C-alpha cells in the first residue's frame, strides 16, 4: 500500500500545455536522430512467475529504418530489421524472413523504431495520456488499430529531462509486460554499417 501511494504521488497528469511542450521536444529530437547506440536490459514480466526474466544486450539504430537488437546475456541472439527483411542470428544459426508483403510486420517494425525514438504521437493511431514523473515524463500510448491492439494493450514510454527515451514498457492484454531500460545511450555518433551485416 505504501508503494502504491508513493507511485501515485510520483506520477501526475500533465496539463495540455505541458503535454504539447513534451511532444514538440520529443519530435524535434527524434527528427534529428540519425543513429542510436545503446545498451539495454529487458525484463519480461509474467504474472505467474516468481521473478521477471532478465536479458540484456545492445541496440543499434540507423535512420531511416535499420534496427539491430543484439542480446548477449543470458543467450546470444541478434535480430536485424533492414529493408523489409528480418535477419536472425540465433547462437550462430542464421536465418532471414522477407516481410516485404507482411503489412503487420512492417507496422510492428515502424512501431519499434518509433518507440525507440519515442515519437509515437499519432492521434489517428493511439490514445495518449501524459504524466510528469520525478525526473522526466511518461506517456501512455494505447493502439487504436484492432490488429495491433491484439498484441499490445499499451506502450508506456519514459523520457528523461532531454526528452530522450530511457524506458519502453509494452503491456499485453493479460497485463503481462516487457520492459526495456536503456543505458549508455549515444545519439548521432558514426556507426559502422557492418554492424547490420548478417
Amino acid at each position, binding site marked *: 500500500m505504501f508503494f502504491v501511494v508513493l507511485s501515485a504521488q510520483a506520477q501526475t497528469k500533465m496539463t495540455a500545455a505541458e503535454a504539447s511542450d513534451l511532444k514538440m521536444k520529443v519530435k524535434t529530437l527524434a527528427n534529428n536522430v540519425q543513429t542510436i547506440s545503446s545498451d539495454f536490459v*529487458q525484463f*519480461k514480466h*509474467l504474472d*505467474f*512467475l*516468481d*521473478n521477471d*526474466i532478465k*536479458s540484456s544486450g545492445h541496440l543499434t539504430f540507423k535512420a531511416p529504418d535499420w534496427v539491430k*537488437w543484439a*542480446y548477449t546475456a*543470458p*543467450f546470444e*541472439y541478434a*535480430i536485424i530489421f533492414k529493408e523489409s527483411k528480418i535477419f*536472425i542470428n*540465433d*547462437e550462430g*544459426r542464421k*536465418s532471414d524472413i522477407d516481410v516485404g508483403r507482411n503489412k503487420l510486420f512492417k507496422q510492428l517494425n515502424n512501431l519499434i523504431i518509433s518507440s525507440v525514438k519515442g515519437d509515437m504521437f499519432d492521434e489517428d493511431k493511439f490514445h495518449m495520456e501524459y504524466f510528469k514523473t520525478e525526473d522526466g515524463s511518461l506517456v501512455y500510448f494505447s493502439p487504436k488499430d484492432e490488429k495491433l491492439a*491484439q*498484441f499490445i494493450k499499451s506502450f508506456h514510454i519514459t523520457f528523461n529531462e532531454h526528452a530522450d527515451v530511457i524506458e519502453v514498457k*509494452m503491456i*499485453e492484454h*493479460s497485463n*503481462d509486460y*516487457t520492459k526495456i531500460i536503456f543505458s549508455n545511450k549515444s545519439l548521432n555518433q558514426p556507426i559502422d554499417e557492418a554492424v547490420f551485416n548478417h
Partner: protein
Amino acid sequence: MKRFLTISLICIFSACASYSKKQGFTVIDSEDSIINPYFSNLDKDYVYKAQIEVYDKVFGGLFIVKKMGSGSHRIVFTTEMGNKIFDFSFEKEVFKVNYILKDLDKKILINLLKKDFKVLVTEDIRSMKAYNSAEDTVHQTIIDNQDYYYFIGEKLHKIVNVKHGKEKIVFEFYKIEDHVSKHILIEHLNIEFKMTLKSIN
C-alpha cells in the same frame, strides 16, 4: 489364404513384435511408480532458450514452465523480444489454451504440443511393466492412451513414445543438476519436428 495367414503371423511375431522385445529388454519386478522430477518444484521458474525446427523452418524463443500446484502447470512460449506466442495451462486433467498467436491457432499443432508438454510435466508415473535393458531400467506406462517407455539409469534420461512397436517421439534429458534438466531434446521421428531447450536461469 494360407499365405496371408503366414504373412500375418510373421508380422505378429517379427516386424510387429512389441517394442520391448525388439529392444531386447528382459522383464523384471520393480516398484509401481516412478517420478519425473524435472518440472516439479513449485518455487522454481523454469526458463529455457528454445529452438523449434519444423520441416525446413526454425523458430527461436523462450520456453517457460511454472508448476502452479499439485498436477498443475503453466507453459508459455515467447519470442526473445518478449512477444507471447502461446500460453497453455494444465490443471489436473484439464488443458486450456490461454493464448495462441492467430497464425498458429491450428488444432493439429495445439494437439501435438499438448501431447508433448503433458509428458514433460507429468510427475507421477504408474509403471505398468518394468524391464532391464543393457544400461537402464525401463518402465512402460500409458499417458492419454499412448504407450511410453521411461529409461532410468542413474536418473531418468529418456522417454520414448511408441506406436505399433516403433519409436514415435523421443524426449531426452541432459545436464541434470538438482532435479533440473538443463538441456532437453524433444524429437518426433515420424514428422520433421524437433525442439531443443537450454536452461538460462
